[in-house]
């Protein structure tokens, strides 16, 4: 590994693998290391024996659970918005060529007053849903029509509101949207994890509402897609992209230290007695404990089931949102469900992951309302992760650190982090219109 590189990347999480793929296609020399023997870091999908090894070292999974390799269990539960930024990145890098297969998530659900409702996905479902009263439906419809027509570049569609200044709370008020309808739009459609957005400029929420509607319109049923064999496929395809363009990969490679020059700029990475010289380093927070700060915790409970979830129409995949107001919290609770259809589990098995941002000293009790909807649960793995973000932006030392994966249900914030790191690292604007690299295929 000793040699000179343009960039050394530490950790093979999704963010890092996208960056190394992009850099390699840009003809930069990339060395990518991971201390684990598998790809994906925190965003890996693990077979059952590796999941046991991680959470219950020394204990083997029961044979009744089926073959270990038939499980691909996500450590971080998320779905892709069908027209979201990660799908755009998949297309503009051309990694969709690598035989990736995506499936549509069957439905999106929301919890209200002890019951689970389907988030209406069609005009017919909006008309018949018991989630909203008759008057509420009209107000919501008027607001959504405004959102649909809103075009940043066309002031005629703005109806005299400057959404970079007017708050979302004020926009709701203008359209007469209140109470449960606000909960519904803000959490189930705009997918805000808290109510903080109400006092912030409305543009972000309007864009989120548009993204949901566009994603839903793409394929129907739900706005989410999910890769066969689990989310862990995503870092692997970007790693292959990087390798195909000449990048070097080393797994099971512990990093001893990061080397800096006299001016404090990074100049190398040392591992097992060798130093890879480089101009910049990119990596996940676990490789830079002194350069990151803790910004809260996320609890995730991975549940293995042998039945579909009745309250979500027995669908083989679903997303369920439990809005904070419904259960007296500040942050929403999410449940992501996949199954053997997505090859995340063997025939007849289902995986449901309950997650939220931790608010108390007893995080498992916080997600009980979600777990209760999944009973009976064959086995569960509870884990709480600290979330980190970099203290500095990398301009001083050329070290660019990603953020931990947040509790959100999709990859939009992850894609934003990728774009931000890419722009700081290259000094160039991220080009969303770049064409996929030429395929040297015969």
């Amino acid at each position, binding site marked *: 590994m000793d040699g000179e590189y343009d960039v050394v990347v530490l950790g093979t999480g999704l963010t890092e693998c996208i960056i190394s793929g992009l850099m390699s296609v840009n003809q930069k020399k990339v060395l990518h290391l991971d201390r684990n023997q598998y790809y994906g870091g925190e965003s890996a999908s693990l077979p059952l024996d590796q999941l046991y090894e991680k959470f219950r070292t020394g204990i083997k999974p029961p044979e009744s659970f089926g073959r270990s390799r038939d499980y691909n269990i996500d450590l971080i539960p998320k779905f892709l918005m069908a027209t979201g930024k990660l799908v755009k990145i998949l297309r503009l890098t051309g990694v969709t060529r690598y*035989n990736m297969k995506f499936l549509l998530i069957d439905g999106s659900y929301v919890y209200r007053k002890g019951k689970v409702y389907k988030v209406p996905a069609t005009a017919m479902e909006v008309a018949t849903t018991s989630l909203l009263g008759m008057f509420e439906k009209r107000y919501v419809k008027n607001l959504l029509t405004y959102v649909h027509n809103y075009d940043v570049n066309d002031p005629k569609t703005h109806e005299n509101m400057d959404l970079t200044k007017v708050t979302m709370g004020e926009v709701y008020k203008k359209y007469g949207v209140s109470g449960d309808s606000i909960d519904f739009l803000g959490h189930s459609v705009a997918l805000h994890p808290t109510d903080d957005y109400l006092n912030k400029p409305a543009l972000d929420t309007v864009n989120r509402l548009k993204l949901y509607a566009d994603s839903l319109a793409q394929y129907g049923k739900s706005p989410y*897609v999910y890769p066969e064999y689990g989310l862990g496929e995503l870092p*692997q395809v970007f*790693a292959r992209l990087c390798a*195909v363009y000449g990048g070097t990969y080393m797994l099971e490679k512990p990093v001893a230290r990061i080397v800096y020059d006299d001016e404090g700029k990074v100049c190398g990475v040392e591992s097992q007695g060798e130093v890879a010289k480089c101009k910049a380093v990119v990596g996940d927070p676990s490789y830079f404990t002194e350069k990151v700060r803790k910004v809260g915790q996320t609890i995730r409970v991975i549940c293995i089931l042998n039945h579909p979830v009745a309250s979500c129409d027995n669908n083989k995949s679903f997303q369920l949102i439990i809005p904070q107001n419904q259960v007296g919290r500040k942050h929403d609770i999410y449940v992501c469900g996949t199954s053997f259809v997505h090859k995340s589990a063997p025939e007849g098995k289902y995986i449901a992951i309950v997650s939220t941002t931790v608010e108390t000293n007893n995080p498992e009790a916080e997600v009980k309302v979600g777990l209760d909807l999944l009973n009976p649960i064959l086995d569960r793995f509870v884990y709480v992760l600290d979330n980190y973000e970099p203290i500095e932006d990398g301009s001083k030392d050329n070290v660019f650190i990603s953020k931990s994966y947040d509790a959100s249900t999709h990859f939009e914030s992850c894609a934003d982090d990728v774009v931000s790191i890419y722009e700081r690292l290259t000094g160039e604007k991220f080009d969303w219109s770049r064409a996929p690299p030429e395929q*040297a295929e015969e």
Partner: protein
Amino acid sequence: MNDINPSAKPVSFKLVLLGESAVGKSSLVLRFVRGQFFEYQESTIGAAFLTQTVPLGDAVIKFEIWDTAGQERYKSLAPMYYRGAAAAIVVYDITNYDSFLRAKQWVKELQRQGNTNIVIALAGNKSDLSDKRKVDFSEASAYAEDNGILFLETSAKTAQNVNEIFVAIARKLPKDRPITDKNEIDNIIIPKVGDTRAEKPGKGCC
């Protein structure tokens, strides 16, 4: 490379190459696909995979041939590499016994991780260097027989047995149902770039 029955619709199969560095994996592919050989072959930059068709009676087999892109070094070949592979060629160098031992490990790995009905072929490459041979033909042949896999000694340099090994694999593949089912529209919802069929009319792709 051959005349192809124009009426036959090619059936696509993913084929992966495995084996230690420098045993001639890329050279075998380039000999098969382009009929070329270079003494100092650099890996093909930017190729997700190469394709080549093999006519076989009424059928036409189209191989999508995946090379390791160097990821076999440093224990970093990702599981997604074997996903959906219908066939694998595990390559060793007949002048390097260690590469044969490593090939056996790859066969084991494929039998553990790969498709249950994956067709595996063992290729003892560099057969033109038989004066420096370190792996006996009989030993490799007996190993292949015990494990129910195909075996040929090949030379990317002289082209010996290169087409033959791909044809032998093609004969063992199920013709009715390709294992790479990437064209099942039901499941593919992010279409390949340039493939507009799967997109809804009037909807731009991003």
